[in-house]
């Protein structure tokens, strides 16, 4: 009746065979683990290299060279008629003021070309700084003040060591004359590198030393707010409907397939859609955070819906049955039990979608957010740009100083991403701990 029992010699042979196999199995296991480790390490190395290269090019964007010079607020230039009203003060010749100061500092300089080179030491943007000072305190007119003025971008690059002084003059953007003046100023302790406040408080500019990321940061923030406010509720509602209420039929199958397809559509297509529908059909102002947010909503929705559905599916059916068995209606089951339990997963999906939207530039190019916008957007319908598009714009600019600013903007973008991901983790933990 019973199966034949293997004889003693058979058993020892079986053991031997298993042992031999075991060695092979353990070897394979070690090899497999080594592959995994190698993959993880190489991934980390790439990321480290990326960060290193961005930070090493970009950290100088956070400082800016300033030149100390005695400025006489000459009434002849600012307010020749002595009216002292805001309108006159606004249109005063402030670049004349610092040019005069430079001429007084280096009185031996003569001739139009040489003077132009001399004026090139100081950024044109300093005129606006001087104007704002006078507008803030008109009593300055007629007085002399020692002020730190922003150096022009080329001088700034030279001071930061990004331009090689040993190059022959014709291959260098800084002339020998300028070098001499700069050295003279340095000798008098009149050149200093300071924290680049402008980079964080200004909008875009054609002049690198006057360009800042604030406009793009505010634009990104407004755009993402629109995206979040629209895509999270819509995405969650769609996921809840599809998971909990939708009848299983062809129509819902079709919706499902299409949502999955939408997640794979290249983002620039959403830009074209936004251009055709939101701007041309509905007449939403172009280049604005509103239309950008709408387009990114379209792009983010599939991600949020798919993540939310997965989170809802992961809610144990026993909880659903328990609530139904207590006499909870379908909506109560969803609102009291399914949604709270699925919320961490939904939030994660939303934040991943938001992070993707934050880094997106292609669809926004299609709806005009690539325009040069110097003002900081104040509302959802103001023209604006976003951080990745700002990076794109600066990377495209010929000035040497935009190189470090591009990396600087990337660092700001990465910081935003880190903050968002940290928020996702914190939110998830908070929600999970409640249960």
């Amino acid at each position, binding site marked *: 009746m019973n199966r034949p029992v293997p004889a003693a010699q058979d058993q020892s042979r079986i053991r031997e065979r298993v042992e031999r196999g075991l060695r092979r199995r353990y070897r394979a296991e070690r090899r497999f683990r080594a592959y995994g480790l190698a993959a993880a390490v190489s991934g980390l190395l790439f990321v480290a290299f990326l960060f290193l290269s961005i930070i090493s090019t970009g950290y100088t964007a956070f400082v800016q060279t300033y030149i100390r010079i005695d400025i006489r607020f000459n009434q002849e230039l600012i307010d020749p008629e002595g009216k002292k009203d805001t309108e006159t003060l606004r249109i005063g010749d402030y670049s004349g003021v610092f040019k005069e100061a430079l001429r007084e500092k280096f009185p031996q300089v003569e001739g139009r070309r040489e003077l132009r080179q001399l004026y090139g030491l100081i950024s044109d943007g300093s005129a606006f700084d001087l104007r704002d000072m006078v507008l803030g305190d008109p009593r300055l007119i007629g007085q002399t003040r020692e002020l730190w003025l922003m150096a022009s971008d080329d001088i700034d690059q030279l001071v930061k060591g990004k331009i090689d002084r040993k190059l022959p003059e014709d291959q260098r953007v800084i002339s020998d004359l300028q070098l001499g003046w700069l050295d003279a100023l340095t000798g008098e302790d009149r050149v200093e590198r300071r924290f680049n406040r402008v980079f964080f408080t200004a909008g875009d500019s054609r002049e690198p030393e006057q360009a800042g990321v604030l406009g793009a940061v505010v634009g990104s923030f407004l755009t993402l707010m629109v995206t979040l406010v629209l895509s999270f509720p819509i995405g969650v509602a769609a996921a809840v409907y599809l998971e909990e209420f939708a009848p299983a039929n062809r129509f819902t199958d079709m919706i499902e397939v299409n949502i999955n397809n939408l997640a794979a559509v290249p983002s620039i297509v959403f830009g074209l859609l936004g251009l055709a529908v939101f701007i041309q059909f509905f007449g939403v102002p172009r280049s604005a955070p509103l239309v950008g947010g709408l387009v990114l909503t379209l792009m983010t929705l599939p991600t949020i819906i798919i993540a939310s559905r997965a989170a809802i599916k992961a809610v144990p059916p026993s*909880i659903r049955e328990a609530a139904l*068995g207590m006499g909870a209606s379908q909506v109560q089951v969803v609102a009291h039990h399914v949604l709270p339990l699925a919320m961490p997963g939904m939030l994660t999906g939303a934040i991943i979608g938001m992070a993707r939207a934050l880094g997106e530039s292609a669809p926004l190019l299609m709806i005009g957010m690539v325009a040069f916008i110097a003002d900081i957007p104040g509302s959802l319908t103001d023209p604006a740009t976003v951080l990745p598009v700002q990076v794109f714009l600066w990377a495209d600019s010929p000035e040497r100083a935009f190189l470090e600013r591009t990396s600087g903007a990337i660092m700001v973008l990465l910081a935003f991403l880190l903050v968002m991901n940290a928020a996702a983790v914190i939110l998830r933990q908070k929600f999970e701990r409640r*249960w």
Partner: protein
Amino acid sequence: MAVESQTQSRSAALEIATAAAGGSEPAARRTVGDVTVPNPVMTCRQVNVHYGDKRAIRDVSLDVAHNEVIAMIGPSGCGKSTLLRCLNRLNDTIPTAVVTGTITLDGQDIYEKRQDVVQLRARVGMVFQKPNPFPKSVYENVAYGPRIHGLAADRTELDEIVQSSLQRAGLWEEVKDRLDQPGTALSGGQQQRLCIARTIAVGPEVILMDEPCSALDPIATARIEDLIDELRQNYAICIVTHSMQQAARVSQRTAYFHLGDLIEVGSTDMIFTNPKHRLTEDYITGRFG
């Protein structure tokens, strides 16, 4: 006479056995024993349940009496849980499930259009196989039902309901100092008693229990069984169980199911000491199942 019925049922059993082996669907068998009781809470008449093409139970008629525990036993897949889930219409959540026949609660057809399923489930509570407290505090678990049905006018009344439900479920002494701790942190047996407390908090007339002790150790099982016996004073209880000892210990009537048929119903004493049908006898003596 008795001998004659015995022979009849034996031949019937033979027919079912051959049909099960052969695969073709035989006609429904008449249930042995009296399915009716005087003054029932719930009645089932000619109930059929299909899951898609598959027939899960066939022409089942059975009454549930007041203040009585009725045990449903049978091998896996015999349809006892399916019938249980029909009694509070939890099968509605399975899209392919089709229920025919009539099931009444206090003379009202529960599958009628007018019947509100939310109200039905408040009157027919359910305790599941795996303890499934909500991931909320002990208090919130018990208060959930009264809250959604609006049973308590204010917080004091709700506190009273929670306390009395936990007391009746025999859990109050163990949890009264940690009502705000998560229900999921309790032990398995405590969780199951919490689920029972949660069910009785809405004041049901019938409590359905789907293998309530199969995930519990013998001590926790004994506590639940004692509790079931106490609850019988106030509620009608239907319990599905795989443990025949449990059926014998807690129930007054027992129904034996086999492959979707209700084979035999009778007082628990009768079923376990003197089964009429051969299939029942085979099952309770451990010859199969």
